[in-house]
């Protein structure tokens, strides 16, 4: 079934739904920027940029709360059903994931400041860059898929998470070996591990967003490994 959120008899309802979707996508853009800035701050040892990421977190929290409030109002006023209801539910769920991604970006920014202050050879940075690129792409693709109600793109992006998880485990193993060889590096490398962990979590949240695209368009809840509920395609 095609998605039409602009054909309600009530024009106000069209506008309400359009507006929460836009708010969510704007929030997504901000969060994607946060992730990019946090990773750049780390790569370029740019503490100032990292501080900027930390300051911007408040804005993202505010947006999550605003979105929740708007969604609650729509439910109270319109009692949405079917695709409208799924739209409202998916937007609030995605907002929650986006807020969590924002938190992870802040963690990366904090670690970037700590590592920049210590300032020595950047062990594990290659892995960080690699995984960061992968999860940033996942996040952008997930939001794109939502914009276009594109289930196929969402499913494709969703499977990317397995690769990220595998890369993460490989990187962790390598870094553990490195710490065993050079115990003086442990405190530094643990910070790098935290960053990898945050990036891996961002991948999980991007996956959740993809699941909400499927829920919105197909009405199938495929979370927690229930991909079988999606029989089509």
């Amino acid at each position, binding site marked *: *079934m*095609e998605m*039409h959120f602009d*054909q*309600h*008899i*009530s024009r106000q*309802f069209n506008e309400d739904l359009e507006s929460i979707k836009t708010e969510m996508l704007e929030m997504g853009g901000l969060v994607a920027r946060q992730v990019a800035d946090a990773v750049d701050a780390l790569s370029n040892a740019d503490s100032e940029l990292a501080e900027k990421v930390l300051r911007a977190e408040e804005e993202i929290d505010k947006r999550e709360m605003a979105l929740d409030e708007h969604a609650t109002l729509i439910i109270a006023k319109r*009692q*949405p*059903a*079917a*695709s*409208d*209801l*799924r739209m409202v539910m998916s937007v609030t769920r995605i907002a929650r994931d986006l807020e969590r991604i924002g938190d992870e970006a802040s963690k990366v920014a904090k670690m970037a400041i700590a590592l920049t202050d210590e300032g020595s050879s950047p062990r594990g940075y290659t892995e960080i860059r690699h995984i960061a690129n992968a999860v940033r792409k996942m996040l952008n693709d997930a939001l794109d898929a939502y914009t276009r109600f594109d289930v196929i793109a969402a499913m494709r992006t969703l499977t990317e998470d397995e690769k990220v998880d595998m890369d993460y485990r490989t990187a962790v193993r390598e870094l553990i070996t490195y710490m065993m060889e050079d115990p003086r590096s442990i405190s530094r490398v643990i910070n790098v591990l935290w960053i990898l962990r945050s990036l891996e979590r961002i991948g999980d949240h991007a996956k959740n967003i993809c699941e909400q695209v499927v829920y919105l368009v*197909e*009405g*199938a809840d495929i979370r927690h490994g229930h991909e079988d509920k999606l*029989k*089509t*395609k």
Partner: protein
Amino acid sequence: MDTMTLDAAGQTAASQPESAEREAVDTNTSKTVGKPFCDDAKMRMRNVNVFYGETQAIHDISLDIGCNEVVAMIGPSGCGKSTFLRCLNRMNDTIEDCRVEGELTLDGEPIYGQKVDVVPLRARVGMVFQKPNPFPKSIYENVAYGPKIHGIARRRAELDEIVENSLRRAGLWNEVKDRLDQPGTGLSGGQQQRLCIARAIAVSPEVILMDEPCSALDPIATARIEELINELRENYTIAIVTHSMQQAARVSQRTAYFHLGRLVEVNDTETVFTNPQHELTEAYITGRFG
């Protein structure tokens, strides 16, 4: 998804994969999407066509109403849902020019059989209307009337018991027990409607048909009636026509969507309101241009 399609011959067929089925949905055919049938059907309707003179009001509708089930019928005005409901206890007989075709059975027995007497039929299949319509008699007489004419109660004590039980089950007893001799028309709208429900259940029907029973009531009276429908389901089979989609969502187990005299979709109520399979259903319940 466990969907069934209904082919022209009115038989169930395991559906195609969902994607194929969705593409196959054509708004101009009489194919019903979803689950029109159930295993323990109390009433079975097959290929029902209804005409008012030359005009066809119902096109080839097949539907089961299961035991202890509430089936909600929704759809825009003029879609045929009330007409269909009225076929179920032959209320359409009173309309001149109205012709009903197809197979309609109650417990396997044809409703439109030549030998069927509509009076006992309507005792088995009771009806509650949109506007509360108590008789201009006392509250007691309103409920006692049916059992009397159907010869269900012979002695006064039996009748008293039926009246009390019916009023209790309709959730009205405590409000009226001290004024049973006062006119039923003196009650509030919500109370009158519950009185009509008590009157309907006094003759121990098996099926209760409700035609927008709450459209003239305030939200509190509506909530009472909905609560009552939920309780009555344990003992009766209920078919309800409603314009309130929230009401259909709250009280029914299955929801049937009618459009221009056709049955477009029947599904578990949950499915209809979260993920309807037909785009006309979706358009209607979400308030889009249909």
